[in-house]
């Protein structure tokens, strides 16, 4: 009799609890429920919204030694900015897909939406800034000029290169194509398509006098081509500019996030550490 009463009491209480929960749920309207979720304030079209959904991050790159390149022996992607991109992906807990382009079509690919971030070493130039947005910057670098060893005695300083008898070879679409004619107005210029290293070929074959590229890129190339390459005034890189990543204009949340992240990796010394590591391997 007692056991039966306890059982009845439990069933009654369970039933009352169920009814109570049902009434409580029904009293909260869907609109109120939705309002209780936190609004991030991020534009759904932003890459940051895509990041929050956990989709794959598309990163474009153009090969340039030390910063973002394919190891010739293993085919593996390496470089200072490659390692940083991996770090970003890890921080965001995302998969990354790397898309190779050339500097000439990097901004076009970015604007078309082929990738969300151009992760190679993009030097600040005004024309580029008019079409794409720079983040950070992550680093800055100067330029160095490489001549053939046979011409080493003729060109001791950069000023010696500003002559009508000098032909510059630059990579088509790289920042040097825009910057160098302004710095060396008397010289002639040719722009070679393809990856960065192709623009050094005319100097090797003596069709051009000098090849200009970023300071670390020049050191890497000169080391690999010690039989013909000579850097002019190696201790004094010229035209120092920020080199960093690019994103599309109009994506403020993504820009703000990457600015924050780039400040973080600069301040905590991660960029410096990677730079020192890769340069040490060169020298």
């Amino acid at each position, binding site marked *: 009799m007692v056991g039966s009463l306890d059982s009845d009491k439990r069933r009654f209480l369970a039933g009352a609890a169920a009814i109570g929960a049902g009434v409580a749920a029904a009293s909260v309207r869907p609109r109120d429920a939705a309002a209780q979720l936190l609004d991030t304030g991020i534009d759904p079209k932003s890459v940051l919204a895509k990041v929050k959904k956990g989709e794959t991050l598309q990163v474009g790159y153009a090969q340039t030694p030390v910063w973002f390149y394919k190891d010739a022996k293993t085919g593996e992607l390496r470089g200072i900015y490659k390692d940083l991109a991996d770090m970003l992906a890890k921080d965001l807990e995302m998969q990354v897909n790397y898309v190779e382009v050339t500097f000439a079509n990097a901004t076009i690919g970015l604007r078309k939406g082929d990738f969300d971030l151009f992760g190679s070493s993009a030097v600040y130039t005004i*024309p580029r800034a008019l079409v794409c947005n720079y983040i950070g910057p992550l680093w800055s670098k100067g330029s160095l000029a490489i001549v053939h060893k046979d011409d080493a005695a003729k060109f001791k300083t950069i000023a010696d290169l500003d002559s009508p008898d000098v032909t510059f*070879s630059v990579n*088509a679409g790289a920042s040097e194509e825009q910057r160098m004619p302004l710095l060396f107005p008397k010289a002639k210029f040719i722009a070679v398509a393809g990856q960065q290293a192709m623009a050094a070929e005319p100097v090797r074959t003596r069709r051009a006098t000098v090849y200009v590229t970023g300071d670390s890129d020049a050191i890497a190339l000169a080391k690999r081509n010690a039989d013909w390459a000579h850097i002019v005034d190696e201790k004094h890189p010229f035209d120092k500019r920020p080199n960093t990543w690019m994103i599309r204009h109009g994506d403020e949340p993504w820009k703000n996030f990457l600015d924050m992240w780039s400040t973080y990796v600069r301040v905590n010394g991660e960029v410096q550490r990677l730079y020192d590591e890769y340069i040490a391997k060169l020298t």
Partner: protein
Amino acid sequence: MLDNFNRYVLPNIHLLARGVSITAYICSFAFLLALALGMIACLIRLYVPFVRIVAIGYIEFCRATPILVQLLWVNYVWPELFGFPRTVTSAGIAALALQSSGYLAETFRSGIEGLAKGQREAGMAVGMSNFQIIRRIVLPQVALVMAPSIVNQMTVVIKSSTLVSVIAVPDLMYEALKIVNQWFEPIEILTSTALLYVAAIFAISMASKNVSDRFREKFGLAAAS
């Protein structure tokens, strides 16, 4: 789009015009060289038995390798092996000529072999010399048959010439890409460039049609299909 056209294309029209002149220069020389090389290869293949295999090898090589491969090979490897070409422009001309000569050799061969044997025999029967037979009987008929293929090959040379921009030859494509790389606005610039190529090729096709119509009238030959 019109704003970009006014801002980026019109102020640089002189650069595009300069590119057009270089393209015309390269294509003209490349095509003339291709005609000569193609004819030599064809005649060797047809009439010089002991080196026929060399001519066949040359023709097949020219036809089987992509133009970009030939261009890079001529520009970067030939100077090391042969000491020429010394400039990128001559490398571009050489590569384009090499590529087209293979196709033209086969065009010439099909034209010559397609002529009935009786035509030559008829010329010999009335006492014509070999030179007269070739000039007055063989060439007019063979030329008319080969003309469409030869003109087609010329348009191929013009289209292929865009690749010489890869080795920094300052042709129309190179100048257009230079402007694109400066301002990063490809649509208007590359559309204008494409229209310039269309205009050039259309003009050549029309001129060729006029010439072959007159040729046909002069020699009273039936229209080639």
